[in-house]
């Protein structure tokens, strides 16, 4: 299917809890989605989903949610649970969601904070998160099985939680450098249909334009049958990407 046959020229991006969950430049992911869609003539409207605010789920084409400090995360956890039925219905329709760090943890079954507080997640991904020390901090290079070229994803992780995958979870990527989910099994992130949970900040999407484009293609066509968006230059993006990959190679 060619790009020109796609009718969608307007997308609605739901940014969940931008006031509470906005650590480490997560806003950069929204900027990247808007930018790369805009250059292709797709206009993206960013809608903020805040505590207690009604959301027009039927209009949502993609969802983004970032990380937050423990205190902020616990403030939104309850509200997030209330929204779970509507959110998971849309995710099952195939709309894409990118969940970074704290948001990834809350997509799992639960997240236990350092203080021992157990925050229940919505259980969409079959993962659980336990506290760990020291924090996993540093550059990450990993390789994903998603249909994108190159297969590498790069970013920066900064998390105390250790996430373990259940039997129903598919890892997003295999770690080459960094800790990833738990520092033990060499996995990073998890995915289900078109939902991606990951620890990668950096910001993630600006340096991984191939992933940005994949998310956009899912937003345009949630059935996933659209093979490619209109090709678009990503040379500057890949220079930022390759710098981190090259550092990883020196270490390997």
């Amino acid at each position, binding site marked *: 299917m060619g790009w020109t046959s796609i009718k969608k020229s307007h997308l609605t991006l739901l940014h969940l809890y931008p*006031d509470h969950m906005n*650590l*480490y*430049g*997560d*806003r*950069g992911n929204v*900027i*990247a989605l808007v*930018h790369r869609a805009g250059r292709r003539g797709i206009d993206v409207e960013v809608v903020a989903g805040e505590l207690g605010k009604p959301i027009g789920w039927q209009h949502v084409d993609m969802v983004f949610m970032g990380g937050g*400090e*423990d*205190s*902020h995360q616990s*403030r939104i956890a309850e509200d997030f649970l209330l929204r779970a039925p509507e959110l998971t219905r849309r995710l099952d329709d195939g709309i894409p969601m990118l969940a970074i760090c704290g948001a990834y943890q809350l997509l799992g079954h639960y997240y236990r904070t350092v203080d021992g507080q157990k925050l229940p997640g919505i259980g969409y991904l079959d993962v659980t998160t336990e506290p760990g020390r020291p*924090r996993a*901090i*540093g*550059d990450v290079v990993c390789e994903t099985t998603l249909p994108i070229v190159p297969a590498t994803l790069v970013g*920066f992780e*900064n998390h*105390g939680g250790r996430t373990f995958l259940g039997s129903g979870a598919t890892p997003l990527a295999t770690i080459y450098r960094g800790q990833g989910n738990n520092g033990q099994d060499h996995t990073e992130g998890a995915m289900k249909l078109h939902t991606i949970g990951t620890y990668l*900040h*950096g*910001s993630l999407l*600006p*340096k991984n334009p191939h992933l940005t484009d994949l998310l956009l293609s899912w937003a345009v066509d949630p059935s996933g049958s659209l093979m490619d968006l209109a090709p678009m230059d990503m040379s*500057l*993006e890949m*220079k*930022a990407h390759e*710098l981190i990959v090259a550092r990883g190679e020196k270490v390997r």
Partner: protein
Amino acid sequence: MRLWVAVWAARLVGLVSRISGRGGSSLPGMVARRIDPLVLSKLVSRLSKGVILLTGTNGKTTTAALAASLLQCDGHPIVHNQAGANLIVGLTSTMVQAEKWRVYPRAALALLETDEASMPRAGQETHPRAIVVTNFFRDQLDRYGELSTTVGMVRKAISQMASDGWLVLNADDPQVAFLGQDQQHVIYFGLDLPVNATLEETGDDVVDARFCPRCGQALRYRQRYYAHLGDYSCPNCGWSRPIPHWTATLWDKQSHIVTVRHGNDLMELPMNMPGIYNVYNLVGAVAAAMTQGLPAHEMGRCLEHFEPAFGRMEQVMIRDHQIWLALVKNPVGFTQVLEAVGDWPESSKWALIAINDRYADGQDVSWLWDVDFETLGPRLGIDQWWVSGMRAYDMALRLKYAGIPDEKVHVVENPNIALDMMVDQSTRTVTIYVMPTYTALLDLRQHLTQKGYTRHFREG
């Protein structure tokens, strides 16, 4: 005896490393602590007026430098780590090297700029008579984890304060002001400027802590100066900004005068630095110095010859070109520097942004995406953007995604070469604003010094 050996060994190491040109302001402290782990506590125990620790995310160096100018004004010697060596080894280096020949410092007071992560240690070893806190923003989170961790480290130091100690706090920063809750001796400083000086609501402004530190609800701002600094109250629990004892009430940008109110007294102070963040630094320094009971009417005179600290909006001339250097290290600071650049009347402006990601810079460059170039970019009047440093491409990408046209952005990975090229390619009417991260700033300084272009810098 142990102390004596520690101090002299450290001074020797300091001398050797200076002669060999290695700088290294932390090495003497490291050596001294290895020989006598109690060296810092022992040395400060003889200071009759004790220690003032000054901490916070932004403005530490400038606030400490301003406070030092005030405290030293009448020839009273103080010990001050003006080299910006603000980790525990740096504080120790400063104390052991305070004198040439004697072991204990003659000064009555030490004013020590202290990194947030070193605060628990510094508190424990110096039992400060005063702690000054400027603000809490997100900064180099890869080092400390999260903002609440940083606040916790400062709290630990406060618990170690001398019982008659003063807490000097920025009333306009909710998390800082809340440190004063249930404390005995607190002095607050803040701003009460006319409305036109306040921030335009951009919606995407960098805000780190807009929730009530007491109950967690969103705060309501009657006035906001930048980021989360302003006059706030909590609609839920009623907690609100404490009334500042020292308040900047007027900032005349033309005559470079800031008016500070204390009770019914008004004083006019010179401030030859741009940016509203420097108004905070100034009033914070005044509040800090006043814990020592300085005569208020002397302050203006004491600040007349103040020069900005190294790389804090500092001016350098290169072959008739005006160059400004301003360190950038976190979203709020970067935004403030850009605002100040936007305030400048120059007709032609070029910018050089140099981003490194070494440990001292912060290894995570995510924060560049929290700087609101989308809103600021078009209104700064910058004709050309040059980007440099180890993460030059991340920065170039940031500008590209903010909608700054490709032809206005030049990537030259080496900041020194970039600066030389900019000077070569621009006319004299162009003012160049250099915005480097910490280690890029050090590299640029060395480059400028080698070329003989700079005024004498403070030790970096």
